[in-house]
């Protein structure tokens, strides 16, 4: 059975059909080449989604102050590249965020209410996922790269090892250059590394997250709201829960 079918079977038990889908696409194995150019449509249909959000992060633009939201860069990863291509064909909406941008399928009015002058915190895209009952799916990506929502929760919990910073960015979007002052919750120093493994283990233990093992990789899924509540409670008592010292 294909990994997506196993996930589909499990998701059929859940009424909600809004999904955030992070993935290492190699989990698709030999099936992957045949999906090139139709991957987003395939995932959308297979999951029977109402709304599907695909990450399209610009993590390598830290030193660039000009970002073209239509540009495609291999370093983003295959899934974001496929997502941006579909958005560039006006079949979806890419949030104009210089770092933590997501591609939404289909475009809906409420997506426009997301504050894209920040990555995390109130009214950010992650706040949107939680408030709109999105199911967080990590489809084969590593634990440390497939749970970006935890950084949002660090921001909400005001963890002691990060601080609010601001920097300027020029965003080329919808034919115009938009200047924005971007808020980011940055690390205070390099004395620690993120370590999301205990959090994932904890979420599975309290049934806020489900795990399926396949092809040497893991698939995780759970309601963003439940993930948020559980991790915020944990961070209240253990503010260093998501990191380890270097």
């Amino acid at each position, binding site marked *: 059975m294909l990994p997506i079918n196993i996930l589909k079977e499990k998701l059929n038990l859940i009424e909600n059909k809004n999904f955030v889908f992070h993935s*290492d696409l*190699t989990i698709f194995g*030999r099936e992957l*080449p045949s999906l090139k150019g139709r991957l987003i449509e395939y995932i959308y249909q297979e999951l029977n989604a109402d709304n599907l959000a695909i990450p399209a992060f610009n993590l390598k633009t830290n030193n660039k102050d000009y970002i073209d939201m239509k540009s495609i860069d291999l370093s983003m990863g*295959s899934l974001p590249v496929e997502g941006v291509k579909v958005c560039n064909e006006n079949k979806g909406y890419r949030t104009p965020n210089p770092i933590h941008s997501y591609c939404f399928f289909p475009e809906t009015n409420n997506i426009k209410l997301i504050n894209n002058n920040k990555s995390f915190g109130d009214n950010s895209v992650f706040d949107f996922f939680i408030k709109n009952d999105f199911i967080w799916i990590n489809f084969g990506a590593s634990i440390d790269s497939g749970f970006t929502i935890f950084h949002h929760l660090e921001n909400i919990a005001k963890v002691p090892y990060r601080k609010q910073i601001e920097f300027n960015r020029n965003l080329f979007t919808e034919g115009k250059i938009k200047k924005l002052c971007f808020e980011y919750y940055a690390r205070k120093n390099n004395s620690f590394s993120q370590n999301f493994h205990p959090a994932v283990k904890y979420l599975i233990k309290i049934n806020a997250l489900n795990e399926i093992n396949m092809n040497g990789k893991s698939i995780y899924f759970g309601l963003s709201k439940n993930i948020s509540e559980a991790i915020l409670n944990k961070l209240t008592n253990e503010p260093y829960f998501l990191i380890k010292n270097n």
Partner: protein
Amino acid sequence: MNKQSEIVDTIIDYLKKGNPVYNDLQEIPLDKSLVELGYMDSFGVIDIVTFLEGNYSITIKDDEITKEKFGSINKMAKLVKEKI
């Protein structure tokens, strides 16, 4: 019999033919993840799997396409070497 270094060279030749970005590099990293460096995407990973299977008449299982076993050129070559 293929030495691991010969397999490495074969992989590099294949990568250079398929993607000009590798020709522009002064040195192709052998022990780092090409995916994490942004030189290869998931489609590229499956493409190199298919090439190695055909070139060396081996089978690479889906659960071997992981960072631990297939995450760098040296790891790819080691896996191939073990199978031929």
